[in-house]
């Protein structure tokens, strides 16, 4: 079963790459871009039939490795 995870920086944490992307987009005449936050996306193939079990295991992975909870939030989608 494939479980998808999105890791993003918490609100208020500086994201210099997102800022650079925003400024570049503005420079390319996408004047409507007000903010960009960059994140990470994971596809995790879990050997598990029960979706609940798979997600709970991925949740554990997020806490222990995939995200650093000092600055990042994660979402299992």
């Amino acid at each position: 079963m494939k479980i998808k995870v999105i890791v993003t920086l918490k609100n208020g944490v500086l994201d210099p790459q997102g800022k650079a992307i925003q400024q570049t987009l503005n420079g390319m005449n996408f004047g409507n871009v007000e903010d960009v936050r960059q994140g990470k996306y994971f596809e995790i193939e879990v050997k598990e039939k029960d979706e609940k079990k798979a997600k709970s295991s991925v949740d554990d992975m997020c806490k222990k490795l995939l995200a650093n909870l000092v600055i990042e939030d994660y979402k299992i989608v």
Partner: protein
Amino acid sequence: MRSSVIIFPGSNCDRDMDVALKKFGFKNQMVWHNDQSIPKSDLIVLPGGFSYGDYLRCGSIASKSKIIKSVIDFANSGGLVLGICNGFQILTETGLLNGILQQNKFLNFICSNVYVKVKDKQNKYFKDLKKDVLELHIAHNEGNYFCSDDELKSLEDNNQIAVTYCGIDGTENETTNPNGAIKNIAGIFNKNKNVLGMMPHPERMIDKYLSGEDGSLFFKNILDNFK
């Protein structure tokens, strides 16, 4: 004084550290990350470099390697653990030190000499150090120290801030902050001050003809405090 330098795939300051430690009289051994245990040591060093290619987050993969359990046990039993640059990043990822090293504020890799102010001398690394400001070298892309407000307060209350970026005269402000680190922090201790993580490389400042000797002071001081 016996020391061990842990080598991870992608470490690249391990040999410099070995040379520096031996130069001042440490009996140093190199230890591979896949080993189960660490030879009897008084100091463990996690060297600089790019362990595991900085994949996922700097230091995150190395912080789960086989040897790390022994490093954590050693630290928790009061042993001296020093993490330089990538070693500092690994220490924050293991949870031995608070916070995290984020990408530099202006997105540039910084390679230059800096001055750092020694903020606390009640510890085995800096006790009785003759100088208050040291000239050391930094080379990093992720050295922008960050932690929560609560963690920062706790670091300040317990005097866990070890070194901060400053000018030659010790002034700390935005212009002497190379990477955007909160409160100019260049290095911190754990609560017991036996674990020290810092971005600057003392091992690159041990030769008066090539670089400078403030790194020598640092290593000699650790030895003096051990005697």
